C-alpha cells in the first residue's frame, strides 16, 4: 500500500465545490418545487460524500504507511504504534476528527435524502439545502484552518505517536459512536428546518426521521457509556464520570434528545407539542455542534481537549447563526405550529410526558450552566473559577430520582385523563415493592437516605415495568397457550415500540442502581514492598512479585498481587506501571476484579528502584450493573430500531391527513 496523501487536498476541494453545488441545487429545487433540481442536488450530495470518502482513505493510507511528510501523521502516529490504532489516529487529533465528522455528515445526508417523490420535493429539497450548508461549513474548516493534509518541510524519521491513553479498544469505538450520535442528529434537524421552510408542518418530518433519531440517540448513549468504561479502565482514578467539560458536551445533547424522543410520541398520538419538538431537535443539534466545538477549540481545558484555538472563531459565528436563524424560522411559523389538541387533565399521559420533558431540559440546562459558568464569570467579573462535581451531583441526584419515578408511573397513566382511584390501583404493587426494599435495606444497615430512596425508586419502577409486561402478555396465557417466556417474547415483538422502550427503561434503571453504588465506594493508598500486604474492606492484597519486560513501544513493570478474603485466596491481580518511549511518559494499567456485588480496583501509581509499589485500591460497589444496564439498553434499542420499515417521506401524510398535504403544497 502506498501513501495516497496527494489525493487528500484535491478531493476536499472537489467536495467543497460539490457541497456548494448541492446547496444551490437543493435551494432552487425547493424554492421552485422542481423535482429535477432536487434530484440533481441529491447527486451532488452523493458526490460530496464520495470525495470526502477519498480524502479519508488518503489520510488513512498516509497513517498506515507512516508518511511523516504529513504534519498530522507525524503528530498522531509513530512507527511503533500497533496496527489497529493507526485507524484510531484518524480521530486522535482535531483535523482528523473534523474530517471524520464531514465523512459521517455527507454519508448520512446522501443516505437520508435518497427518496423523493413529487409530494415531498420541497421537504427533501430544503433538508438537502440545510445539510449541504452544514457540510459546506465543515469542508471550509478542513480546507482552511484545519487542513489535515499540511506538509512538513523537514520530514521527521518517526512521528510523536498516539497518546497512550487513546491506545485502548474502548478508544477505537467510543469517539466514532459519539460522532455518529452527534452527526446523526443532523438529519432530524435538517428535516425539522425543512418542515418549517416548506410548510409541511404535519408530522411527516418526524416520521421520515424517526429511525435516524433513534439511531443517533442509541449511538450517543452507547458512546457515552463506553467513554465512562474507558475512563474507568484507563484513567486510574477509580471512577467513570467526572463532569469534565467534554463529558458534559456529549451528555447535554443526549439529555435534550431523550426529551425529544419522548415528546414526539405526543405529537404523533395527540398532535400537540409541535413547536416544542422543533425547538428540542434544534437545541439538540446546536448542543451537538457545541460539543464538537468545545472539544476541538481548546476554549475549556480538559484531558480531552486539543489546545488548538484557530477553529474557535469559526465555530462561534456558525453556532450563533444556526441558533438565531432556526429560532427565527420557528418564530415566523409559530402560528402554523399550533397544537390540534389540548390538555384535558393534570393526571394524564400527556402531563407525564410534559414533566419528563421539563426535567430533561432542566437537566441539560443545568449541565450547560455548570459547563460555561467559568467562561461567563471570567468574562463578566474577571474572576477565574471552576465548577466541580458537587454542583452537578447536587442537582442530578434529585432530578435523576424524579425521572426514575416518572419512568415508573408515566407508562401506567392513560391518555387524556385518569381517575386517581384507578392510578392507585395500578401503582399499589410497585409501591409495595419499593417500600419493602427500603425497609429491608434499612434493617440491613443502609443509612444513607439518598441511597435508600434511589434503591426503593428503582425497585418501584422496575416492578412497574415488569407489571406492564405481565399485563401485556397475559392475553397469551390461557390454558394450552404459551409458556411465560414465550408469552413475554411475543409481547415484546408484537409491539416493539412500546415494549422495546420498556426494555430501554429497564436498562436505565439498572444503570441508576450501579450509579447509586458509588455512594458506598472506599479507597486506600499504601506503599508496599515485595512480600508485604495491605487490606481494604475484607480483602487482603499481598504483593508477590514484580515482573519487568520491554517491547519496542514500552517498558513494562507488572506487579502480581494475590487477593484473599477470609484467609482464602480468591484472585490474582496484575496492575502495571509502564513507560512509553515515544511519549517519554509513564502510564498505569489498572487491574479490576469485577463482580455484581462490587469491584476491586487496583492501580499502581509509582514503583521505586527496589520494587516498592505505591498501591491505590478502591472498592466500588455495584459498578457492574452500569455495564449490565447498558447491555440491556442495547437490546431495547435493537428492538426499537427493528420496529418498523424505513418510512417513505410523505407516505404517512397520505394515510393520516390527505387534505392537509393538499393544502400545504
Amino acid at each position: 500500500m502506498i501513501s495516497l496523501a496527494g489525493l487528500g487536498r484535491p478531493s476536499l476541494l472537489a467536495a467543497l465545490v460539490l457541497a456548494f453545488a448541492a446547496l444551490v441545487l437543493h435551494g432552487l429545487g425547493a424554492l421552485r418545487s422542481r423535482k429535477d433540481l432536487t434530484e440533481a442536488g441529491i447527486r451532488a450530495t452523493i458526490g460530496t460524500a464520495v470525495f470526502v470518502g477519498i480524502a479519508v482513505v488518503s489520510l488513512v493510507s498516509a497513517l498506515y504507511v507512516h508518511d511523516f511528510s504529513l504534519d498530522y501523521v507525524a503528530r498522531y502516529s509513530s512507527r511503533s504504534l500497533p496496527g489497529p490504532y493507526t485507524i484510531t489516529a484518524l480521530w486522535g487529533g482535531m483535523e482528523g476528527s473534523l474530517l471524520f465528522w464531514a465523512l459521517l455528515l455527507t454519508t448520512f445526508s446522501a443516505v437520508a435524502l435518497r427518496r423523493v417523490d413529487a409530494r415531498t420535493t420541497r421537504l427533501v429539497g430544503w433538508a438537502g439545502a440545510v445539510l449541504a450548508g452544514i457540510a459546506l461549513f465543515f469542508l471550509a474548516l478542513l480546507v482552511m484552518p484545519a487542513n489535515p493534509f499540511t506538509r512538513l518541510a523537514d520530514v521527521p524519521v518517526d512521528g510523536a505517536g498516539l497518546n497512550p491513553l487513546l491506545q485502548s479498544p474502548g478508544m477505537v469505538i467510543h469517539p466514532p459512536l459519539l460522532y455518529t450520535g452527534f452527526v446523526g442528529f443532523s438529519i432530524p434537524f435538517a428535516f425539522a428546518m425543512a418542515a418549517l421552510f416548506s410548510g409541511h408542518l404535519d408530522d411527516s418530518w418526524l416520521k421520515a426521521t424517526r429511525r435516524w433519531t433513534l439511531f443517533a440517540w442509541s449511538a450517543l448513549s452507547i458512546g457515552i457509556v463506553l467513554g465512562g468504561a474507558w475512563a474507568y479502565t484507563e484513567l486510574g482514578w477509580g471512577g467513570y464520570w467526572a463532569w469534565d467539560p467534554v463529558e458534559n458536551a456529549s451528555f447535554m445533547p443526549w439529555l435534550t434528545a431523550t426529551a425529544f424522543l419522548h415528546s414526539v410520541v405526543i405529537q404523533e398520538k395527540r398532535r400537540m407539542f409541535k413547536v416544542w419538538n422543533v425547538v428540542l431537535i434544534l437545541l439538540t443539534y446546536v448542543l451537538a455542534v457545541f460539543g464538537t466545538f468545545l472539544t476541538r477549540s481548546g476554549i475549556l481545558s480538559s484531558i480531552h481537549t486539543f489546545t488548538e484555538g484557530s477553529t474557535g472563531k469559526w465555530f462561534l459565528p456558525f453556532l450563533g447563526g444556526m441558533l438565531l436563524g432556526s429560532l427565527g424560522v420557528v418564530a415566523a411559523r409559530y402560528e402554523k405550529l399550533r397544537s390540534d389538541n389540548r390538555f384535558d387533565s393534570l393526571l394524564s399521559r400527556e402531563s407525564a410526558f410534559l414533566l419528563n420533558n421539563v426535567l430533561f431540559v432542566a437537566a441539560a440546562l443545568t449541565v450547560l450552566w455548570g459547563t460555561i459558568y467559568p467562561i461567563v464569570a471570567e468574562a463578566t467579573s474577571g474572576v477565574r473559577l471552576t465548577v466541580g462535581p458537587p454542583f452537578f451531583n447536587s442537582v442530578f441526584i434529585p432530578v435523576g430520582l424524579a425521572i426514575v419515578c416518572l419512568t415508573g408511573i408515566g407508562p401506567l397513566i392513560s391518555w387524556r385523563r385518569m381517575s386517581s382511584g384507578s392510578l392507585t390501583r395500578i401503582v399499589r404493587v410497585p409501591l409495595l415493592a419499593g417500600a419493602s426494599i427500603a425497609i429491608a435495606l434499612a434493617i440491613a444497615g443502609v443509612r444513607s437516605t439518598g441511597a435508600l430512596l434511589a434503591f426503593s425508586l428503582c425497585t418501584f419502577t422496575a416492578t412497574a415495568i415488569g407489571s406492564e409486561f405481565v399485563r401485556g402478555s397475559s392475553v397469551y396465557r390461557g390454558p394450552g397457550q404459551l409458556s411465560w417466556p414465550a408469552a413475554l417474547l411475543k409481547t415484546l415483538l408484537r409491539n416493539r415500540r412500546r415494549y422495546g422502550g420498556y426494555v430501554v427503561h429497564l436498562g436505565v434503571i439498572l444503570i441508576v442502581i450501579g450509579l447509586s453504588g458509588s455512594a458506598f465506594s472506599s479507597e486506600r493508598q499504601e506503599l508496599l514492598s515485595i512480600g508485604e500486604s495491605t487490606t481494604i474492606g475484607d480483602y487482603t492484597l499481598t504483593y508477590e512479585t514484580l515482573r519487568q519486560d520491554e517491547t519496542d513501544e514500552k517498558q513494562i513493570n507488572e506487579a502480581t498481587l494475590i487477593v484473599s478474603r477470609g484467609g482464602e485466596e480468591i484472585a490474582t491481580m496484575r496492575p502495571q506501571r509502564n513507560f512509553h518511549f515515544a511519549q517519554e511518559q509513564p502510564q498505569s494499567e489498572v487491574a479490576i476484579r469485577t463482580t455484581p456485588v462490587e469491584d476491586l480496583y487496583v492501580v499502581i501509581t509509582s514503583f521505586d528502584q527496589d520494587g516498592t509499589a505505591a498501591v491505590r485500591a478502591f472498592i466500588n460497589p455495584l459498578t457492574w450493573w452500569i455495564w449490565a444496564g447498558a447491555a440491556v439498553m442495547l437490546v431495547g434499542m435493537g428492538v426499537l430500531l427493528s420496529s418498523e420499515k424505513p418510512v417513505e417521506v410523505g407516505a404517512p401524510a397520505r394515510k393520516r391527513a390527505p387534505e392537509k398535504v393538499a393544502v400545504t403544497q
Partner: protein
Amino acid sequence: MDEQLETSGRRNRTSPKFLWGGAVIFLALVAMVFWAMGRTGSTAYFLKTSELASSGPSAEEPIRVNGNVVEGSVVQDGLASTFDITDGQTAITVTTDRPLPDSFRDDAQTEIVALGVYDGHSFAATEVLAKCPSKFKAKTS
C-alpha cells in the same frame, strides 16, 4: 389559515393550572441550581501562584491554583510529594499525598493545576492535574 380552520371552534388555550404547575416546577428547579452553586466545593476559585500568595490563607474553601513546576524542586517520600510551582513571579510549595499524574515531570514545561487549601506557607493539594504542552513533538533528528 388552513390549520385553524381544521381546529376551529376549539381555541387551544392551555389551562391556568398547567401554567401555574409549570411555573412552580420551573422556579423549584432554578432555586435548586442556585442552592447547588452555593454548596461547598461546587465552585472553586482558580488562581495563579502570585494571586494566591497575595490573597493569603484559604482554610475554608478549597481553591485551584496553577503554575509551572520549578525544575529540581520535586521531592518524593513514599506516597507524599512536595514541589514548587510558579507563574513566573511567585513560587509556592505544593504538598500532596495523592498520586501525581502520568504526564507530571520535574521540568519547567509541566504546567499543573492543583486543588486544595493554602495555609499561607504551602498548598495542601487533594488533586493534581498536569497539562502536557508541546511534548508531543515529532522527532526531527
